[in-house]
């Protein structure tokens, strides 16, 4: 019995345009190193490109990201096309354009999960981190409207020095608004965020305290909280948390989230600036089996040699190392800044 090779999920960056200017934005085209100019394809070309990559990869899940995906006028056509192909669609959006009219075009149940940033319960902090006045009110309104329309919503909290003091209250806000869960993502430098490390980067102790609060909150309210950005076990005692789930880099596995930019260029993940090739011109499998992808998957910082979970952890976030330090073989900048405190897992 011959089964087609399958890759589970992909990220499609619908557009590089955005109406926010987040301090922590990790978009690869905002890195210090230049990213090739990217012209959005026409609707027909975009659908043809997505059709080709779905044919080849048999992916069952596509997360639409950006920029702000809803800025692109044909995003609804793209979503309908993906649904016709039997693909599950997630939408990663800042929520600013999720008006009742926009939501009406996305229901019933076209989107599996909406991911919206909820950066603070304090309007000023949320708006500052978003780089957009009024972002907090627009986002909370969008979240409430989505829940009124019975959609699944995950609130994303990007943990920084600016908003960690309000973490517990922000989680309460997400819960009260009806969010289905929270992603507690530590600030992971890259893109615009790499320019604000001093202002944003929290210490391991601050983050560990926030994890303690998250565990308690999740237990109290039976509320799912996942830490998607890898929390290196050599810095954090993750084993003591029963309720929280922790993500590791998925590079090289079936769940790696290969990312396609608006022009069809494929990258190992949405944080990484490495371009593996263009899916319009080459076969998906040729690209992810190619030398650039193999090098990315194989990359391990020397620092991690001898650690028992080196293979599973993959040295924390190699894409952040690449974005900030130029190579995925370097050490994740967060780990690098706190290397003296790291205790390898033996």
């Amino acid at each position, binding site marked *: 019995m011959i089964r087609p090779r399958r890759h589970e999920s992909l990220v499609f960056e619908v557009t590089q345009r955005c109406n926010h200017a987040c301090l922590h934005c990790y978009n690869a085209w905002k890195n210090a190193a230049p990213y090739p100019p990217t012209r959005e394809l026409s609707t027909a070309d975009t659908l043809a490109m997505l059709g080709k990559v779905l044919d080849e990869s048999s992916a069952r899940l596509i997360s639409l990201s950006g920029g702000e995906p809803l800025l692109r006028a044909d995003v609804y056509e793209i979503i309908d096309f993906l649904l016709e192909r039997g693909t599950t669609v997630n939408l990663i959006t800042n929520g600013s354009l999720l008006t009742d009219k926009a939501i009406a075009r996305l229901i019933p149940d076209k989107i599996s999960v909406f991911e919206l940033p909820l950066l603070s319960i304090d309007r000023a902090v949320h708006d500052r981190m978003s780089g957009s006045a009024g972002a907090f009110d627009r986002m909370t309104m969008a979240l409430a409207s989505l*829940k009124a329309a019975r959609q699944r919503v995950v609130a994303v909290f990007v943990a920084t020095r600016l908003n960690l003091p309000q973490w517990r209250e922000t989680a309460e*806000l997400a*819960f009260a*608004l*009806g969010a289905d869960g929270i992603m507690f993502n530590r600030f992971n430098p890259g893109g615009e965020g790499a320019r604000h490390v001093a202002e944003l980067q929290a210490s391991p102790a601050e983050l560990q305290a926030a994890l303690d609060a998250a565990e308690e909150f999740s237990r109290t309210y039976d509320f*799912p909280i996942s830490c998607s950005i890898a929390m290196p076990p050599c810095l954090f005692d993750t084993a003591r948390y029963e309720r929280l789930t922790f993500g590791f880099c998925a590079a090289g596995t079936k769940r790696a989230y290969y990312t396609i930019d608006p022009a069809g260029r494929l990258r190992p993940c949405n944080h990484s600036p490495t371009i593996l090739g263009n899916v319009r011109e080459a076969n998906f499998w040729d690209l992810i089996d190619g030398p650039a992808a193999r090098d990315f998957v194989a990359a391990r910082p020397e620092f991690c040699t001898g650690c028992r979970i080196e293979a599973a952890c993959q040295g924390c*976030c190699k894409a952040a190392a690449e974005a900030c330090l130029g190579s995925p073989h370097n050490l994740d900048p967060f780990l690098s800044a706190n290397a003296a405190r790291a205790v390898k897992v033996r």
Partner: protein
Amino acid sequence: MPYRALNGLLVVAGLVLALVLVVLGADLALAARTGPRWKRRLVAAGLGLLASLGLLSAGCQSAESTNPAPSTAAPATGQSLAETPQWKHLAATWTEAEEVASGRRGPYPFDEAGQKKLLADLATVGTDIDALAKAGQLNDAEAGLLREDLKRLVAGVEAKRPTEMRMATCYEPMMMQPAHDSLARLEARLPLLESLAMDEKIHPDAVRKVLTTIEADVAYLDAEEHLNEFPPKDRPAAEKTRDAARAALDRVKARLAAPPAAPDKLASSKDWAVVIHYWQTVTPLAESGLGTEKQREDAAKCLAAATEAIKRLTDASELSEGESGLLLTQAQCLQEDMYRNPPTDSFIACYDIAISPPQQQSLDRLSARLPLLKKMLEAGKLHPAVIEKILPPIEADLKQLPYLPENYPAEMREVAAVRAEVEQVLTDLKKAVDGTK
């Protein structure tokens, strides 16, 4: 009874046999599937008991766990379907895949090697079906149905994540239970939402949106047929949660309906400082009713200045007409209270000053304030700083009313009417003030 005893003996014997097999290092799962029927039954019974005692679990499947090896030989003629090696392999692999795909073995039912092995076994099951169909052991319809179901099983096994992938979720939205607002969650959400709404942490429109979902939940729990879905022991809790939710809804709605908070410029203005100065100067004199001529002269000057300040604030729309009217009335009341006794440094005879009874004064004051209070509420612009000043004397006057003599029924009716109206307005005002803090 004898039948139950027989079953009990069977389980005990199975347990003994299972333990013996464990001691001998045999594979219990394999022993339960192979060999004579009596042995399979005994081992299965023993395994069942161990499992029910929690001493045995399906656990994570690894590459070491084996199903019968696939057979390349064609099924022998005359052999029953169940006895063919192809069917034995198919049945064992099928059972395992079904358990994995159904989620009975949990979200991470195997390690990577175990998943690879199971998928490889499932791939050879297709060959088994082909061989059995070719040998006439399965007809075309049976083989076709099995092949269709096999696709479902393969997809189900592929969808499960190996233990190595337990944490590989970076950036991807988390796996989670389907969204549903359990009663417990509703109960926990409401106080938080109420507090956020009261503190104006979120925009009122967002709160209104959230309320629509909660109202729907409450309405759902209003229906008898939905309440009947709860087990009898849980029904009182469901009703209690529903009632608490409704009460919280009413509170949040009342908060949302309150007039919007006025800008906070007033409290920091110079004119307001003049008004405050008057209050601070006169209140001690008014409370005691004692003061010198000089103090009263100063108070009169302060009152003039405060009156002008209040007028300016009204002209600048910093105060509503209702607010300014009440402040002026209240300022005048304080002035009158201050004069209720002769000055402490003069010799004016006590009869020179005619004073009406305190109860009557309270009634008069309340009657005078009532239209202003209503006007202020209607204007929809409220300043907590103003309310703080005017509420205490009104409440003090309200307390005076019950002491009116009872042999004046007409007056009592008037008192009752004024009291009811004032109390209602005060309640509305307090709600509004709570909302603006």
